[in-house]
């Protein structure tokens, strides 16, 4: 029963049964959403993997992945700044939490811009949904489907970060809400950590021997 008091709040005096997971409902809902989202990405990656595995002449056209490396570093760093913001919020440092959240959001915006730049570069090279210079059309379609879906998540996450940060500063949200948006942000970062090897590095032109 003692866990009940951990999650019991000031809003109600109702005695409740102990939640088995002992985490606030909002956070639980975010975890459940992440689990559902994992399946959504898994379905996209499964479609890509199924097609790629079955295509004998799948191209490996990427010569330089420097931009992707930079984007990965930005994404990972934004995960760290998010955690610093969360730590500051939990310690009651409102200004610090707001500042680090905004830094995270800026990282998100830079990442989004770099991602769009990357897409523009691909489009300039003639990679479309239907055609690309290197071979099977499925390459472009699955590339844009997966990265586009991830990009959508990252842009939504960035917007969510800004909204939560502003409301946190205004006093409507608290450290718990920052923790929830942090879980989502780490999740989209994790998705990117999968996209880099699966979509970019495995399509990297191997060094000639």
């Amino acid at each position: 029963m003692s866990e009940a008091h951990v999650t019991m709040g000031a809003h109600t005096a109702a005695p409740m049964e102990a939640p088995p997971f002992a985490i606030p409902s909002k956070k639980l809902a975010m975890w459940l959403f992440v689990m559902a989202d994992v399946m959504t990405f898994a379905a996209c990656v499964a479609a890509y993997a199924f097609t790629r595995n079955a295509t004998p002449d799948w191209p490996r056209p990427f010569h330089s992945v420097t931009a992707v490396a930079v984007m990965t570093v930005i994404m990972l760093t934004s995960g760290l700044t998010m955690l610093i913001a969360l730590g500051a919020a939990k310690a009651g440092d409102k200004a610090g939490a707001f500042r680090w959240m905004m830094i995270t959001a800026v990282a998100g915006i830079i990442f989004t811009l770099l991602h769009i730049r990357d897409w523009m570069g691909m489009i300039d090279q003639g990679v479309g949904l239907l055609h690309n210079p290197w071979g099977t059309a499925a390459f472009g379609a699955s590339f844009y489907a997966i990265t586009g879906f991830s990009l959508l998540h990252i842009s939504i996450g960035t917007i969510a970060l800004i909204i939560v940060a502003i409301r946190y500063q205004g006093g409507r949200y608290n450290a718990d809400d920052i923790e929830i948006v942090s879980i989502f942000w780490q999740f989209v970062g994790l998705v990117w950590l999968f996209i880099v090897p699966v979509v970019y590095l495995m399509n990297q032109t191997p060094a000639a021997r």
Partner: protein
Amino acid sequence: MTTAERHGIGKYVAVYICLLVITALQFVIGYQNIQGTQLVVRMLTFAIIETLLVVLFFMNLGSEKPVFVKFVVYFMLFVLATMNYIWTDSFRLLLFRLTKVGPS
């Protein structure tokens, strides 16, 4: 900042550096002349290690109650495992295409 919090950030920085190193290793592997299964195995092994680090530390699953950790981990592992039924058909389609028999 108290020492306890600095300790928390220190842990995150350590995980962050680990993630950077693992990702760098992936990039190195990407430039090597490695093909097929070998490539997939290496990339996914590192990606799974990264997943563990991110989920346990960055998403703080590690500090939740064990029963919740089990709920998330078992549920996800099981459902993701059942997605792997697709492979038999993927490989069969590859065989069709390589041998030019059967529908492609």
